């Protein structure tokens, strides 16, 4: 396993008696993309500020690349690039000048700074706007310039705070693809915070769910949903010709299947029911099972001579996780969150 580059132990920080970060423990390995997910005000930005030594923790310890950012912020900031949320640039300077300034602040010599700035502008696709004042940049261009700005110091870790905020979906996808490819190219460790799940799901190796200053769960998406939805059955939607009761019984008899209900009779799935009513001769069935038995179901239906139109296995993605934790968070907080967030 790769070495741990960010190690947070029992970190606590409170503002005016309110705990913004509460007993946070988190390890990030070299080269991975870690997504810090949480609703607004969950303490993501506060954690990031403490990682950079811009804010002091009340309790707990932080170790970034073997350094304590509270004690030695300068060497940490030399190796860690940080893109603040809603990043701003000197608007009466060009994009190139802004980048060169950052490079010069990192003690890169002038000529090299310019060279690097041109390269980075090209890799983030802003070469045409290098000599344009940043005041005239669009939101998406600003974020891409921000990415170049973070990378110009040749960091080992980059921390991006809400990098996709306020960008249109296409720009967002491009930016995330850019982050992914840049991190792969340069072997960067990326920590990004967001409250937008889908994008993060696309590029993150691991995510951490962060609610009210606590880390509820961490892991890759599959293991996260496995651990969080272990008790819940796998949900398979079957779209087929009219089903008879015998077939239904046989499907229910497949090992692992807990229940199989025609959707239109159930009444819970209204959209599916109306869709079923529209096309005559089709019906929907929801199957809940412990294991993936879609193969067996399909075979059974076809062997029975019933037309099979579609078979869809529902994956528990971040959305389900998100809704479950951010909306009805309280009751799950004790039950499912990882033990180490509870201890100490």
């Amino acid at each position, binding site marked *: 396993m790769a070495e741990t580059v960010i190690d947070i132990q029992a970190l606590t920080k409170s503002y005016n008696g309110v705990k913004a970060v509460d007993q946070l423990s988190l390890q990030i390995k070299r080269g991975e993309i870690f997504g810090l997910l949480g609703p607004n005000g969950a303490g993501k930005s506060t954690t990031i500020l403490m990682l950079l030594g811009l804010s002091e923790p009340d309790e707990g310890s932080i170790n970034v690349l073997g350094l304590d950012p509270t004690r030695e912020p300068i060497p940490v900031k030399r190796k860690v*690039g940080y893109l603040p949320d809603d990043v701003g640039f000197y608007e009466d300077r060009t994009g190139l000048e802004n980048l060169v300034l950052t490079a*010069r*602040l990192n*003690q890169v010599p002038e000529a090299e700074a310019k060279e690097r700035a041109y390269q980075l502008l090209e890799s983030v696709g802003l070469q045409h706007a290098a000599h344009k004042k940043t005041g005239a940049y669009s939101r998406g261009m600003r974020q891409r310039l921000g990415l170049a700005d973070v990378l110009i110091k040749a960091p080992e870790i980059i921390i991006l705070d809400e990098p996709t905020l306020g960008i249109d979906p296409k720009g967002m996808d491009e930016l995330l693809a850019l982050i992914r490819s840049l991190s792969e190219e340069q072997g960067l460790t990326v920590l990004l915070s967001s409250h937008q799940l889908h994008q993060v799901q696309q590029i993150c190796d691991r995510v951490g769910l962060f609610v009210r200053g606590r880390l509820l769960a961490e892991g890759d998406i599959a293991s996260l949903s496995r651990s969080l939805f272990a008790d819940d059955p796998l949900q398979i939607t079957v779209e087929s010709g009219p089903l008879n009761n015998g077939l239904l019984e046989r499907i229910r008899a497949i090992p692992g299947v807990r229940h199989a209900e025609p959707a239109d009779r159930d009444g819970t799935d209204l959209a599916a029911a109306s869709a079923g009513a529209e096309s005559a001769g089709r019906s929907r069935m929801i199957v809940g099972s412990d294991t993936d038995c879609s193969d067996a179901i399909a075979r059974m239906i076809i062997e029975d001579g019933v037309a099979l139109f579609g078979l869809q296995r529902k994956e528990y993605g971040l959305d389900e996780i998100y809704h479950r934790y951010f909306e009805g968070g309280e009751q799950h907080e004790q039950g499912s969150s990882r033990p180490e967030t509870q201890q100490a």
Partner: protein
Amino acid sequence: MNKEAADLKHSRPDLKGSLRRLANTVREGLRRQPLFRRSEGRGSVSERSQEAGSWRTSPFGVLVRKEISDHIRSWRFMLLLGIILLTCIASLYTAMNSIQEAIQSDSSANEFVILKLFTLSDGTLPSFISFIGFLGPLLGIGLGFDAVNSERNKGTLSRIMAQPLHRDALLNAKFVASLSVISMMFLMLGFLIMALGTIILGIPPTLEEFLRMISFIFIIIFYIGFWLNLSILFSVRFRQPATSALSGISVWLFFSFFYDMILNIVSKGIAPNAGTATVEDIVGFQNQMLWLSRISPYTLFNEATTTLLMPSVRNLGPLTTEQVYGAIASPLPFGQSLLLVWPQVTGLIALTLICFALSYVLFLRQEIRGRS
């Protein structure tokens, strides 16, 4: 004739070419100098850490350079410079007008003619020192009022703070850059006036006059430095540039106009009864009022500059007839004048430092966040 003209025409491009060649060789020569070789591209990490010691490449130096170029490019600075230049020319003009009368009427004042350029006025327009006393604060406030909060509002503060530099480097750089812009501007103005005066009057300045003028300019710089720091303090404290500008301007107006009025009211209240008061009472009262008025940086500046520019000023407090008795009405030497205003100068520097320390402490304790 024709041939000469042709020669001239022929020689001109040559001249240009040779100038260009000369410039190139100078540039080449400079590049070979060790000082300039630093900026050439050879930045491995180990060498970069060696370079860290040099002022030019340190983050602080980079920030100072950036701030200075920001100031010089900005419209705001141009406007302030324009105002100061205009008043400077106007006061110089009135001083020129009245200086001839002054020289003719008063033979004892023939010394220190150049210094009179800064203090004389024919009554239509204020003199140079009163202009500076009044407009200098505006310059200081104008250069400092949005130093920190505009960075915060533009979202650049957190970006700069994420670079490897100490938090105070930004504040120090802002202060040093603004102060050096102000210093350059006033040194230039002072020398310009002196040069113009020398050309027009035909009297070269003596060493003493020169020293007095230089120290006068330094007092102007300290004075404006105080206002600059005050406005930087407000810019750290208030999130909106408009609020900090207004607070700076209100302090300025308070000390320029209202403070004297308030002092008048106070003096009426605490004045000793004219019938029964002893000499000690009156002297004590006068001194008290003087100390009260010296709270104002405006008074400090006025006392310091008039003493330096008018060598005949011997004392800044009340003098009894006994004390003056036997004194020879001659100008003070430079050293003595400087000694006389030393408390004022120290006071100005102390005020500046207090403001700076306050903004320093405030800034170091503030949260660095996004645009909130």
